[in-house]
């Protein structure tokens, strides 16, 4: 099921469409309070890819997606969102952002439906009344995360995992083609993780782009076509999820995606299945994988 679901997304870049990559960063450096957090990131994520950014705390993974969205300024290098620098990007309705939050904020109660419906804001004119399409999109988003029955309740009554699902539904409600999720699985119960995996499977099947940051893959593992492992603000692995998915790059001096990951048979089979991994970002990413896998294992990456 998973493999066929990935096929359209993976196949798309091969047809060499004029569409620019969904996300791109060239020689990206970011400093926070004078401390370098990203140190020369080159990354290209094409439309239709499902990419997970992995790394330990402090490896710069959240900063990477924040810089790609223009939320964190870059000290040097450049970033592009669908071919346009974030500062000049205008098609924000194409982006669905799920921030990393323990709870849905605000000092005033808001119902689940109100928060989810606010995800339509980029699609609505200032004075336009709520349309049938708005209502239908909100209902679909609530269904997708399994919270339709609790739409009228205050968000504050929900558990942490359920609140995380509300934030995902808010992004879904805007019907974007590109999703950015910051640790959607952190601190989330098993039921919510399963629902998240199911929602993501649907999105991938529809050919939408998903970029998510995670501490570990968990139930998302079968969905992921590519993982980017960060350590110390650099990309230390970029390729099939097997090696990166275990939280460390392979240590044998080969680019990890050329080698079936050891130790996990099921995962290895899947890697062979999607075979030659045709996304164009691969060539760019290779040198990083070689650079690091020849040297000592980056400490802390697996923590």
């Amino acid at each position, binding site marked *: 099921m998973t493999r066929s679901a990935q096929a359209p997304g993976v196949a798309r870049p091969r047809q060499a469409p004029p569409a620019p990559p969904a996300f791109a960063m060239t020689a990206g450096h970011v400093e926070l309070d004078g401390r370098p957090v990203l140190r020369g990131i080159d990354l290209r994520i094409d439309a239709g890819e499902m990419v997970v950014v992995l790394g330990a705390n402090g490896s710069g993974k959240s900063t990477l997606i924040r810089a790609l*969205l*223009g*939320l964190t300024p870059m000290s040097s290098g450049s970033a592009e969102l669908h071919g346009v620098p974030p500062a000049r990007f*205008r*098609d*924000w*309705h194409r*982006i669905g*952002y799920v*921030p990393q*939050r323990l709870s*849905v*904020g*605000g*000092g*005033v*109660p*808001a*119902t689940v*439906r*109100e*928060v989810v419906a*606010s*995800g339509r*804001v*980029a699609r*609505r004119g*200032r*004075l336009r009344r709520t349309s049938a399409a708005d209502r239908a999109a909100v209902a679909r988003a609530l269904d997708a995360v399994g919270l339709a029955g609790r739409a*009228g*309740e*205050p968000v504050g*009554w929900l558990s942490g995992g359920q609140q995380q699902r509300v934030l995902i539904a*808010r992004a879904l409600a*805007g019907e974007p083609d590109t999703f*950015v999720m910051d640790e959607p699985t952190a601190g989330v119960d098993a039921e919510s993780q399963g629902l998240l995996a199911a929602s993501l499977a649907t999105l991938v099947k529809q050919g939408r782009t998903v970029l998510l940051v995670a501490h570990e893959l968990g139930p998302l593992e079968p969905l992921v076509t590519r993982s980017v492992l960060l350590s110390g603000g650099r990309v230390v692995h970029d390729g099939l999820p097997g090696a990166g998915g275990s939280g460390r790059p392979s240590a044998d001096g080969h680019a990890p995606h050329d080698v079936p990951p050891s130790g996990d048979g099921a995962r290895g089979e899947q890697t062979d299945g999607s075979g030659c991994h045709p996304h164009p970002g691969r060539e760019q990413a290779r040198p990083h994988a070689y650079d690091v896998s020849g040297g000592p294992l980056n400490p802390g990456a697996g923590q």
Partner: protein
Amino acid sequence: MIEMLQYDFMTRALLAALLVGLAAPAVGTFVVQRRLALLGDGIGHVALTGVALGFLTGTAPVLTAIVVAVLGAVTIELVRARGRTTGDVALALLFYGGIAGGVLLIGLAPGGSNSTLTSYLFGSISSVTGQDVWVIGVLAAFVLGVVAVFGRELFVLCQDEEVAKVSGLPVRFLSLLIAVTAALTVVIAMRVVGLLLVSALMVVPVATSQQVTRGFTTTMLLAMLLGVVATVGGLTSAFYAEVAPGAAIVLLALAGFAIALVVGRFVRRGRARETTP
């Protein structure tokens, strides 16, 4: 009630009270959601300098208060946007500066003294003129218009500023808009409850309302209703009991909060039982 309306000054006062009761909680809902409940207090302190400036220059204190309150609100917003850690102290400095500036300037004004400021600090709704009612009416219409037109965007902004940015909303403009709207609300409410109690009308009805509501829109609408009940009810009881109207209004609003606290506990307990699987 009808007896009250025989006096022109009371008719004007009731009209002003009604408008303030509607506008202050409407803005207050966004301010509280943004966790800036003390914003109104800050602007109120700064507005005092504006009032004194009016006396000093011989212009209408309401107009100078508008100008200075808006400038103060914009400054507060710019400081806040820079980063919360230093913003905290910077805001406090602005508050003290506002009060000190007001006292200093009023002393320089011909015939002015600290007692001139008292009516602005604690309100003097019975001295509201026809012109005041017009100014209050126009400002209240503006405030309610902003909430109606930008409410959806302000909701996203007050919920999560970064999500607002990634939704393509004009975050800086909306932040300034909410600050300016709060400043105008402070000036409107200045005559009714006084600058020191302005923030109560922006915060207390909202705090009361959310004890019993589930959603944002219902919280706002109920807060506006409670605001009107407090201002009109407080003014009426002040008229008959001959007490200070501003204080009566705020105490009535606080009494409502105490009641809602008890009612809300029962309501919530009932709901928790009903939704717990």
